[in-house]
């Protein structure tokens, strides 16, 4: 088992798949000669050449559609969109072409593309570079949405996404590319569906995904050490489809639930998980589920305001203590 960074794990998945299959290509702004904004494609241009590691013009809707069109004729494109904030411009092609083509062709055509893009608040990048968009993607039939919380998932989810015949959106995070973690030396494929119990516990379930898994894990430590509360942490690496059975199983065990998300609460992951809890296991609940979410505001530039706009570990701890009547 080797330790590697999140970006290295993504790069490794690209490299393995591109060396296995000449029809796997990658494309995006500055991914080739420049090696990628987050280094996810570093060195691949020299190895695979400009026809397969493609620097695109700044035409998000255009090149995303080009990748989708290429997938119609057997190519397996991995499309990098520099930031989810720019993915808005590609929504037409992602939603109207990739997600719907299998259905509206009665199963004749499919769009096996991978679209990778980082979302989330980094360091004072301002409102137009800090948004989260996973809630938008996960509401659309015909599209899979996964979001890795560590290098192992970043590697394994991308490997499976490239081979899967559905379009897959991979939601990454700008702050996580340098995160270190263990990735198995042997090739492996992470399931695209399901959820993972990252820490088992009895008293409350903390649901997180991507960066918020880490708030949940550190909150669980604090809750155990300082408050005697044994929290379970569930990593929702698949946002579409959400793991209804996994969510219900954990809540049926702990009888309490909290969802932590970096995005605003409205129409979000937390709202959806709460709805699933209601539908699947309402009578298992000992307390009303709660959400820990961002403040509903365009992300501010000022660092104090920026910090205040998104949740963190302490917010998760405080919300759990409140749920237990301890705050």
């Amino acid at each position: 088992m080797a330790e590697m960074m999140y970006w290295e794990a993504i790069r490794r998945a690209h490299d393995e798949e591109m060396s296995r299959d000449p029809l796997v290509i990658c494309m995006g702004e500055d991914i080739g000669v420049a090696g990628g904004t987050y280094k996810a494609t570093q060195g691949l241009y020299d190895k695979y050449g400009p026809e397969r590691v493609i620097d695109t013009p700044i035409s998000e809707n255009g090149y995303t559609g080009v990748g989708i069109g290429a997938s119609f004729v057997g190519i397996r494109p991995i499309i990098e969109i520099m930031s989810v904030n720019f993915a808005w411009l590609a929504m037409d092609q992602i939603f109207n072409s990739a997600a719907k083509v299998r259905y509206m062709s009665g199963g004749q055509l499919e769009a096996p593309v991978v679209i990778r893009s980082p979302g989330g608040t980094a360091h004072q990048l301002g409102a137009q570079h800090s948004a989260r968009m996973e809630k938008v993607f996960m509401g659309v039939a015909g599209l899979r949405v996964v979001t890795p919380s560590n290098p192992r998932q970043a590697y394994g989810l991308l490997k499976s996404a490239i081979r899967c015949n559905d379009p897959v959106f991979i939601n990454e995070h700008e702050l996580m590319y340098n995160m270190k973690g263990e990735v198995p030396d042997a090739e492996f494929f992470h399931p695209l569906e399901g959820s993972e119990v990252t820490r088992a516990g009895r008293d409350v379930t903390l649901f997180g995904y991507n960066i918020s898994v880490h708030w949940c894990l550190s909150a669980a430590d604090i809750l155990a050490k300082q408050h005697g509360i044994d929290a379970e942490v569930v990593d929702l690496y698949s946002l579409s489809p959400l793991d209804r059975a996994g969510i219900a199983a954990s809540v049926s065990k702990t009888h309490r639930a909290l969802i932590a998300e970096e995005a605003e609460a409205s129409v979000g992951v937390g709202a959806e998980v709460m709805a699933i809890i209601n539908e699947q296991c309402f009578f298992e609940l000992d307390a009303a589920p709660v959400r820990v979410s961002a403040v509903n505001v365009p992300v501010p530039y000022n660092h104090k305001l920026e910090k205040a706009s998104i949740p963190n570990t302490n917010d998760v701890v405080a919300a759990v203590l409140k749920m237990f009547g301890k705050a």
Partner: protein
Amino acid sequence: MKLEDKKRVLREMLYARRFEERCYEAYVERKIGGFLHLYPGQEACCHGVLEAARPGYDYVITGYRDHVHAIKCGADPKEVMAELFGKETGSSKGRGGSMHIFDVKHRFMGGYALVGGPFPLAVGMAKGIKLKSTDEISICFLGDAANNQGTFHESLNIAAVWQLPVLFVCENNLYGIGTRIDRSTAVIDQHKRVCGYGFPSVQVDGQDIEAVYEAAKIAVNHVRSGKGPYFLELMTYRYRGHSMSDSNKYRSKDEEAEWTKRDPIYILRDRLIKEKALTLDEYKKMDQTIIDEIENEVIRFCEESPEPKVEDLQKYVLADNDPWVKGGAR
């Protein structure tokens, strides 16, 4: 064009005309729902271009006015009409409708309803062709108003920078729904807009199939021989409303009458009659045969076909049992 090809294509165009007119009737009879965009008036565009290409082999993509393009690529007219009827036997199993005809085995890669949506898809197919080093080309048929979308410019630029085998065909019928081109578009001659992307573009009379064919031959040759993209602008006119819900308040009777005089089917028919390759009687007989054929084969097939089962509502959303969803086949 060779004489026997001209005769065959005359029949095909007349078939397309009668097919579309029968769609109109079926819509009025409420057999067809939704939006329905018909093709009469523009037949020489689709047929002229594809006569010069290899339908069924080259990849073809278009917008929502798509029935005739699909049939010309090799789609069974019965399946196309059944799709409009929403039947399980339809080309998209009743899940697509008039605007979403697909026949992938004949490389008809779809009808799409977002104006301008197919541009990048066509370029992407061309990228795939180039990567695989095969000799197909990608052909994108769209309207004049679609050129005001960002995708037009993004796609033409990408096709040019990457030197891709894609032929853009602009069927300039002078209107985007009810807005005449000069009210929406700064430059009426669409081929002129292409000079900013540095590849060849020409404008041709889209009512005369032989003119279309000759221009398309040059275009297809250019694209297939690896010289990069090409743009063909075909000046044409649609005789019916934009769709079935058309106010018809935006163009004059005089203008319509002018264009009706240049009916692509009559232009070819009269030429064949003049060349003594056809008599008016033969033409009328052929017409009646086509009308009967559509009624007795196509419409009957649709009437007798079953609808999709409601239990199958969620079929075709995602791949069936894709092993990678569970992390591989092992």
